[in-house]
């Protein structure tokens, strides 16, 4: 606490860590998508192509949230 520069730096690291909490939801979402996709493929292997496409699409959307969190964390650490 005696060194304000170090204190701000520490808070930055803490903030970046907290920003990455956003990855929790994305992780759950990607896991759900994969689970559903694999189950659907197991039941109907003929439709695997379409299911895979839509699964990856859904995963990409879910993952986008984590990527936003990552971008925020990176910007907190490396910019300014």
């Amino acid at each position, binding site marked *: 606490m005696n060194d304000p520069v170090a204190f701000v730096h520490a808070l930055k690291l803490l903030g970046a860590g907290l920003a990455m909490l956003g990855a929790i939801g994305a992780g759950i979402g990607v896991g759900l998508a994969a689970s559903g996709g694999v189950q659907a493929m197991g039941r109907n292997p003929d439709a695997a*192509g*379409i299911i895979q*496409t*839509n699964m*990856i*699409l859904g995963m*990409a*959307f879910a*993952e*986008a949230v984590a*990527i*936003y969190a*990552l*971008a925020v964390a*990176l*910007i907190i650490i*490396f*910019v300014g």
Partner: protein
Amino acid sequence: MSEVKPKRRFGVKRWIILALVALGIYAAFIGPSILKPISPEVSLAAENTGLHIGSLQITNTMVATLLADVILILMGVGVYRFIRSGKLVPTGFYNMFEAIFEFMWNAVEGSGGKWARRIFPIPATIFLLIFVANMVKLVPGFETIGRIEQSVSGNGYAPVKLFQVGGLEVYTIDKGQPVTLTSTSGEGTPAETTTAEEEAMCTSCVVVGFLRGSATDLNFTFALAITTVILTQVYGTWSLGPGYFSKYFPIKRLIVGGIFGLIDFVVGILEIVLEFAKILSFGFRLFGNIFAGALLLSIIGVLVAVVVPAGLYLFELFFGVIQAYVFFLLATVFISGATAGHHGEEQH
């Protein structure tokens, strides 16, 4: 990394791999300090290479993108010549190219329908560019050979002269001689420089690569994202005429639809916001994945210098392909959704 299994034949390749692992262990733990991995100096923005056209500074990501472009053009010329040669059965490289093309074509045709032929060039170009850029990025030396510069943050290492080729002096920076003010940081592996005068000024040095992965620059990813979203509008207008914009401004519904017309109008405004959100998510997804991957590789390289980075390299290879595919797939879905009409948010 392959392990020794007693039942299988002990081939030459296995000895080569073991020798490389031993070399890695020597370089990281036993050998001279110039061989040791150094934690990187990370900068979010691309660094300048020192060249410039007019007032435009050429950054290292620009050079890397140009390199990827050149490789793509060479691939294109090669494939064109192969097609002109009249052979029907592709071999080797062309076989792979045909497989990629068939894969892309199936994906586009599946979602684009009768518009697939007109949509195809856009996502295919994006896929090939991102794919080649991501693959080229993983070549060793890509981000580590560059100019030595004075560290901005004040944490760097002393330069050590390796050898001289004609007028070109080659330096590396030494982990054993940290010139730091606060903590240990810097950048590793051999570095070339052309001018000795610049070198004399540098005391606390970091390496700024001549090349840096294209997708680790926000300008590259956002350029692709903005192009894609604008082309979505272009294809929508091409397919549906001016009526396409009633998706954003449902004037007719507002006049005749009563209260539901008003709701539709608000939804239309949300659609406009959604287009901008698409740009953001496109741009940050590619950038975040590739940048974080590069960061992960360099940091893991410091923590666990041997074996583990090889696995992560494989992981990065996979992610380069997956991110190219995701960008391609989303572009395809958005563009073909725009050609399909008002309810075309889903993939039909």
